[in-house]
């Protein structure tokens, strides 16, 4: 269906491409290694284009918006005169034309220099971000691991017993999970677990007496503080991934090789977990790569509710104080993490699915 002149797109292995079943396998004669190499090179080139696209969009959005960070210190300060304003602009480099600033910024960025924060302490952006990154990343990794641990069996069982009571109950939970605003769930949990039952701390990441605790005590203290945020992340991601797993599994179970496996007299357990599951897992790899921007974006709300000093909270503060270098740094790091995620996902996909190396992609049904 896809005609000759349409380029094979990196995104064509994504769930949305359900309509086009790219049936033509193309020529598979080229050596495998070369194909893989070419594929990776093409991906990398595209990633670089996308990465600069992101920096360009971020830069223009931030700098073309009306108002300037100088406003906060001049128009709101009756003592500041126009000269002070110009001095500030010079200090921040805001007096130069926009393209020049962009080129300068890119040049510095390539040397991993994101500039210094506009805020009082004038610390390097990279330092500030690298202080905040570990918390956000580790919380997301933990909740992602938990999500997979729960969602995979859930999706498998629901698919294997489609229409059964388990499937129906999980479907209901999934729909509620899709619709549940994370911040409302956070409020409900806080009200019950922290205020009424006094089981978990309300906010922050450590207790006041943290330093005096034993190392086990410290770990427990952290766990108690992070329990609710991680639960909310997990609950939010659970719905999407288990639903995706279910439809992916259903698709795999409808294939001919499953009928063959059953006809051979294999146990249903073997059919499901060995034959179907392996194939059903493939599209999930892409989904995980794609879900990264959402995770990073979602951290803004959860972290500001629970007062966690992570990337999301940092970004919120940076936006509110118009800290241009810090905002740019955050956007770029966020985009970089996402791109790295999709690249890894794509690479894993290539390793796991022999079909992908020939440039054709399977047709995956999925949830939007």
């Amino acid at each position, binding site marked *: 269906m896809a005609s000759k002149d*349409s380029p094979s797109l990196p995104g064509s292995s994504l769930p949305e491409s359900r309509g086009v079943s790219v049936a033509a396998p193309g020529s598979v004669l080229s050596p495998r290694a070369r194909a893989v190499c070419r594929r990776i090179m093409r991906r990398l080139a595209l990633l670089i284009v996308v990465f600069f696209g992101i920096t360009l969009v971020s830069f223009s959005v931030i700098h073309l918006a009306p108002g300037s960070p100088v406003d906060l210190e001049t128009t709101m300060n009756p003592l500041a005169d126009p000269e002070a304003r110009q001095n500030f602009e010079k200090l921040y480099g805001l007096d130069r034309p926009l393209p020049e600033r962009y080129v300068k910024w890119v040049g510095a960025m390539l040397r991993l220099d994101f500039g210094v924060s506009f805020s009082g302490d004038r610390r390097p952006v990279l330092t500030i971000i690298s202080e905040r990154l570990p918390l956000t990343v580790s919380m997301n990794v933990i909740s992602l691991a938990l999500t997979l641990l729960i969602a995979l069996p859930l999706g498998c069982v629901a698919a294997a017993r489609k229409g059964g009571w388990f499937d129906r109950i999980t479907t209901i939970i999934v729909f509620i999970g899709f619709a549940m605003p994370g911040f409302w769930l956070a409020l409900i949990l806080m009200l019950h677990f922290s205020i009424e039952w006094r089981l978990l701390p309300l906010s922050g990441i450590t207790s006041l007496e943290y330093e005096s605790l034993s190392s086990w005590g410290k770990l427990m203290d952290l766990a108690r503080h992070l329990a609710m945020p991680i639960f909310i992340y997990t609950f939010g991601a659970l719905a999407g991934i288990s639903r995706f797993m279910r439809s992916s599994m259903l698709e795999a179970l409808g294939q001919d090789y499953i009928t063959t496996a059953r006809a051979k007299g294999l146990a249903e357990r073997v059919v499901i977990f060995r034959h179907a599951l392996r194939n059903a897992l493939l599209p999930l790899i892409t989904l995980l790569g794609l879900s990264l921007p959402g995770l990073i974006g979602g951290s803004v709300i959860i972290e500001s509710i629970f007062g966690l000093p992570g990337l999301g909270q940092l970004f919120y503060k940076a936006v509110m104080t118009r800290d241009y270098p810090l905002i740019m740094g955050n956007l770029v790091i966020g985009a970089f993490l996402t791109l790295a995620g999709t690249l890894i996902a794509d690479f894993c996909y290539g390793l796991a699915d022999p079909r992908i190396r020939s440039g054709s992609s399977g047709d995956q049904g999925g949830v939007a």
Partner: protein
Amino acid sequence: MSTLVVAKSAGTSANPRGRFSLRRRIQRYGLLWLGLFLVGSAVAAALLAPFLAVQDPVQLTLHQGLDAIFQPPSPAHPMGTDSLGRDVFSRMLYGAQVSLWVGFVSVGIATLIGVTLGLVAGYFGGIVDEIIMRAVDVMLCFPSFFLILTVIAFLEPSLVNIMIIIGLTSWMRVTRLVRAETLSLRERDFVAAARLAGAKSSRILIRHVLPNVMAPVLVSATLGIAGAILTESALSFLGLGMQPPMPSWGNMLLEGKESLEIAWWLSFFPGMAILLTVLGYNLLGESLRDLLDPRMR
């Protein structure tokens, strides 16, 4: 998977027993009706807000004294009153207007952009396609909530700005969807026939291709409304959406957060409203997907 579904439903519809097919029908359309009911209630609440509201949603009633504030739900105030003595029920109704506006306008913007770009990319291919799809990649890799937050904080947080920025950051999925459909449609005989008959590209796209991509677009738009409502409420909850005193479910939740311990109803009702409305659009979208195109399950 689709074959499985088809085989199953074919088997049951062939079943002559009426009761069974009724149960089957409820299973099939029950979620659709539930979705329609929830969406309908939200739309009705928004449209009828001026008639149903007990009090002005913004006007303060301080003349009633301190007795008026933090009243739990009662017949006079079905959802209680807030920290300024305003009727929560009335504010909820006006909040429904906000979510309705945001949902429809931002998805309208996103769909318009997405369908146009998708048709053009899929039909013309080549360099145009390449540029559009790279733009899609760029936008998809953005932590889009970061971008929305930045723009809203820099511009003014107003209803119009929120609708526009949500629309401008959510057209990518529709573009991909429409492009994929167009790619396959343009090879079909009826498109070739139109081309041979001398139809211009614009006419082919609008008269022949567009009608055939409407079904999946409708599904994706319905699901998109749910997403837009969630995004708006998240923004308002962060204080960057609708500005007080104008009510939106998100900023009502923010106010409810301040008095979580003493007034559960301030956060319960707005949260429930968001949950049910989003649930409604999701159910509607998923059911439409089943009905319009069994392949899409």
